[in-house]
């Protein structure tokens, strides 16, 4: 075999990796590493690191009450929207589990929210929640300015998020439920497991791998939520709807404060990483594989 052919044989598998590896390095690993390094420096407007300041940026961002509030809001967002979305999805799946003549129609109806884009849905709710014109105030005969009041703004963002999530959660739990064999269910019924008991003792453990998957992926997604805030409230009123990602956007793109932005990036990464790890602990405790 000629030498060139030998060399080619050695490098051939790497040639196929070049395009994807290049993009992954440029837009995932490089920015991640650079954010990490620059979070310890004062950075000028051109992105050049000027002075090593150790943990000063972290002290600044963790001393920023708006960022602390953003962390709190993001955690609240996870704790509220993730379990509620999965529960609603599971309820819809239980409802649609039995195949009937019209079941394909309502299955599609329950799943459709996952095809809706977040920003369009945000615009629909913006009108629905409008204090003078919106259907919500007209229906409940109230005069609330829902998205401008501290007590209700974040609540509504979470409601919209749940709505956006249910299609996805429904699809997954539905196919998991349909995967549970009839024999298992019948023998459980013969053993006297019916109704709520059947649900908690038989069905839930059997679909728990799917629930775990939904839990991990929804937590990861909820930790980086920020679009609804950016469109509907810009973090207001008074920081009550700020999330980690909307804070990042405000810091860097709107006000050009990169120093604290990079430190906030790393804090946000560590927090979401830890939460995803935590959800894996659930696997050890609550999931049953056959």
């Amino acid at each position, binding site marked *: 075999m000629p030498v060139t052919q030998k060399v080619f044989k050695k490098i051939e598998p790497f040639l196929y990796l070049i395009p994807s590896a290049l993009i992954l390095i440029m837009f995932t690993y*490089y920015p991640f590493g650079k954010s990490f390094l620059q979070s310890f420096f004062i950075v000028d407007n051109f992105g050049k690191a000027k002075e090593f300041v150790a943990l000063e940026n972290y002290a600044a961002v963790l001393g920023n009450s708006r960022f602390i509030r953003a962390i709190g809001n993001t955690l609240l967002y996870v704790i509220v929207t993730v379990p509620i979305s999965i529960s609603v999805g599971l309820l819809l799946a239980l409802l*649609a589990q039995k195949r009937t003549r019209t079941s394909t129609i309502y299955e599609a109806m329950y*799943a*459709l929210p996952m095809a809706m884009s977040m*920003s369009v849905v945000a615009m629909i709710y913006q009108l629905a929640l409008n204090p003078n014109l919106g259907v919500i105030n007209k229906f409940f005969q109230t005069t609330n300015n829902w998205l401008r009041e501290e007590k209700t703004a974040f609540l509504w963002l979470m409601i919209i998020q749940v709505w956006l999530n249910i299609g996805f959660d429904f699809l997954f739990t539905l196919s998991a439920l349909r995967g549970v064999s009839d024999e298992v269910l019948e023998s459980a019924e013969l053993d006297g497991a019916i109704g709520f008991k059947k649900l908690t003792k038989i069905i839930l453990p059997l679909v728990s791998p799917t629930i775990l998957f939904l839990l991990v992926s929804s937590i990861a997604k909820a930790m980086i939520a920020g679009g609804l805030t950016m469109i509907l409230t810009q973090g207001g009123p008074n920081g009550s709807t700020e999330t980690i*990602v909307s804070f990042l956007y405000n810091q860097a793109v709107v006000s050009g404060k990169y120093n604290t932005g990079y430190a906030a990036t790393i804090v946000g990464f560590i927090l979401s990483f830890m939460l995803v790890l935590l959800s894996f602990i659930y696997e050890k405790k609550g999931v049953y594989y056959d």
Partner: protein
Amino acid sequence: MNRKKYRSVLYQAFCLFVGIVVLLPIAYAVLISFMEPPEILRREFHLIPDGLYLGNYIKAITKTTLFRFMYNSLVVAGVSSLVRVITCSMAAFSFAFFQYRGKNLIFMLYLGSMMIPPEILILQNYATTAKLGLINTYPGMMVVFLVSATHVFILRQNFLSYSRSLREASAIDGCTNFMFFCRVLIPSSTSALITVFIASFVGTWNSYVWPLIVTNRDNMRTVQVAITMLNFPDESPHGAIMAAAVLILIPSALVFLIFQKKIKSGIMAGSVKG
């Protein structure tokens, strides 16, 4: 028997009713989009339009560049999904059919990128894109969507199930690896490739944060960004915004309904267990 049938009809009616409740926000947008401006401004509860008023749709199409925005979204979602199918299938080919040192480590690095959410990297990626001079360009809007480790993984699983004997047979026929990839593997994996393409298309079409950040010129906005910035001077904008919202939702709803099974299996394949 009759009673059983009656109960089943009742059950289905209830399920359909729940479906309508789930879709209320969309129904609301559709209903408002057919109302005349004074109807929308009416103080009392009013949901069913008096007539089939099309003015909002005409306004949404003529007074904004809605089709330009849709074209932008189509280019960004279509091209980046196509590129993603190519990059991911090449990487998956390398991982599935070659044996070389460091393969497992490289594969772990690919999978590890799933742990770093792209939204958190927007600051650095914005800086990189600006340095490359790609702000307000289609390539700039696409760069972060061109590879997905999840899709490399899905395609690798798919290729692994491919029969080795066929690979060996084509090697004996003098088929090089690249020829095998192009002429045998790709044509016979269309189903998985289409799945990846559609899942990627819907995701990119619906994305908001990245296209917002890398564009500041109106004619480069995607629909998802533009819809939040539409303005109609000297008149009440709500009807026209809802009409635009409905027009934007139609393509993604159609794609979803037509390819529901593909999308489902695409996401399912991404979950290891379940």
